[in-house]
């Protein structure tokens, strides 16, 4: 897999700062190839969520460019952008009792014109996406009554009917129990492997990233400090340097992939680092 084979989304020297705030992204350059499955990791405040929102076109870079299929994203109209990039924010909680099937159908919004309603074709796509994400059984349940894992599946189904082949997710597994974490990661891996989608997820879980992503980007203070296959990026030494926590690097007995655990996990410990990672 070569990085420049077929670039799907590309960032060139992207800088971003919120109005009146300090620089959040400081010269980020990345090229995500089509069909790849990437993870963005880094300590809190390293700019990874902002990076994702810039990629989604929700924030416009102060300097630099985002290219979607070699086209400047800022020149793509919001409707067309929505048909090509799906973005799943953290903690989606609807204000009213939309049922799962309605929520999935709402993903068709950028494809429906004016005052239009969903067509037969739209509903067909909705059913297909719900079958694919194994959420058909939830279709009449209100989204706010679903568990975190069920909710994420429904929202992935909505992304499936929305965009063509690019999904950006902000911490899709953070609030989930370990069973659902694995479930969502498998779903995303399947999306990339079987459907050829490009998947970019911001995550806090280094071990999930090591297992389920082909490529890991590590950020610190608005800059990319490392990018490459998980085994190269997620070394004990680097994580120690970036997070400021001494780490042990182990090997997963089943997969052989690296597993990182904090070196000092004794309950009594004086705080000596300025890292905010617990």
């Amino acid at each position, binding site marked *: 897999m070569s990085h420049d084979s077929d670039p799907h989304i590309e960032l060139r020297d992207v800088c971003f700062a919120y109005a009146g705030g300090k620089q959040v992204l400081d010269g980020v350059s990345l090229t995500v190839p089509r069909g790849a499955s990437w993870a963005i990791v880094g300590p809190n405040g390293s700019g990874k969520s902002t990076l994702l*929102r810039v990629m*989604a*076109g*929700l924030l416009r870079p102060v300097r630099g460019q985002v290219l979607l299929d070699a086209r400047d994203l800022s020149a793509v109209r*919001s*409707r*067309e*952008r*929505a*048909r090509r*990039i*799906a*973005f*799943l*924010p953290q903690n*989606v*909680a*609807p*204000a*009213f*009792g*939309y*049922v799962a*099937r*309605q*929520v999935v*159908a*709402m*993903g068709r*919004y*950028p494809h*429906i014109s004016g*005052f239009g*309603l*969903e067509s037969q074709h739209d*509903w067909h796509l909705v059913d297909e996406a719900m079958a694919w994400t194994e959420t058909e059984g939830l*279709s*009449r349940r209100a989204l*706010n009554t679903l568990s975190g894992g069920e909710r994420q599946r429904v929202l992935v189904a909505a992304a499936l009917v*929305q965009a063509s082949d690019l999904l950006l997710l902000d911490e899709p597994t953070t609030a989930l129990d370990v069973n659902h974490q694995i479930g969502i990661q498998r779903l995303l891996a399947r999306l990339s492997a079987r459907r050829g989608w490009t998947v970019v997820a911001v995550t806090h879980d280094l071990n999930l990233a090591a297992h389920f992503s082909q490529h890991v980007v590590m950020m610190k203070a608005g800059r990319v400090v490392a990018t490459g296959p998980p085994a190269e990026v997620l070394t004990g030494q680097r994580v120690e340097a970036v997070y400021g926590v001494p780490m042990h690097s182990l090997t997963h007995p089943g997969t052989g992939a690296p597993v990182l655990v904090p070196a000092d996990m004794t309950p009594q410990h004086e705080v000596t680092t300025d890292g905010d990672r617990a």
Partner: protein
Amino acid sequence: MAIVRELTWRRWLAAVGVSLAVATIVLVASLWVGTQDVQVGRAVAVLFGQADDADARMAYQLVFGLRLPRTLLALVTGLTLALAGTTFQALLRNPLAEPYTLGVASGGALGALLALKLAPSLGLIWAWAGPSPVQIAAFVGALIVVLIVYGLGRSMGMLNTYDLLLAGVTMALFCGAAMLAVQYFADYRELFGMIRWMMGGVETVAYRDMVSTLTLVVPAWLMLLALAGALNQLSLGEDLAGARGVRVGWVQAVGFFAASLATGAVVAVCGPIGFVGLIVPHAVRAVIGPDHRVLMPCAALVGGAFLVVCDWGSRLVLPAYGRLRGLDLEGVQLPIGVITALLGGPFFLVLLLRSRRSERVVR
């Protein structure tokens, strides 16, 4: 429960058709409702030139001079408040938001009162056919309050129920105090107009008020209905809506503008009428679900019908009480705002308790 889960044009037509039928039936029935026994048939005969005796003309005066205009105004006002309530709820992602609880109606009332006090002394006389100065002032007052409440919520990061309601109540109290101050500085003649206006209600309406109100609220209705699809998206959150191609800032600006415009226009004529924008959208949502593309037209029509029925109460309650107790209360009317508040207050408390429970579950 007939929640519309898969919206098709057939279902849309069915839901909107039923709402329209309810509104029409209530509107027509309203011609018969009142303390005086009127032969509506005779009044209609006068309208078509089929009768011209004194009795018939008396009936005509009652039906088309009094009952019809107040009914139409109640319909337009209820429709507007329900639509504004639904919009505020979606924009603020909070089912307890509505013109009254947000303080928007009070802002409109303060604006209107200032206009009543200042317009004559500034030589502003309502000489044109369009919106009155009172209505424009009410719109400006309503818009300022919306912007303050929304800005407060924004600056605190998230608009949670309690901050929002607290901000709304604070604005309402502030506007209430400012209104007292305006009244304090008014002379007797001005004061009479103000108090009469503040009692609210739809009984003192002329067809001219109707026309001026319609010039403001009809464009606002159309703007709000056009936002329906985008409001669905915003109900899931600004980021998700933005990523789906909704121009979030634009939709919020148009929504707040149009809902304030509509609220101001009706508050200026009827005085502050509370809770219609809360009760009606909630009830309609419980029946047909939260899809704004069908919720908004249905809530609007049902809101109109609801306020017309409240107006029946306003016409009938005190005279009925009087007859029961042997008092002469014929023709005495309970302000319509009192009726909606008596119904809406307890309803609001129940919703608040329920929202608190559900928020606890989510966290």
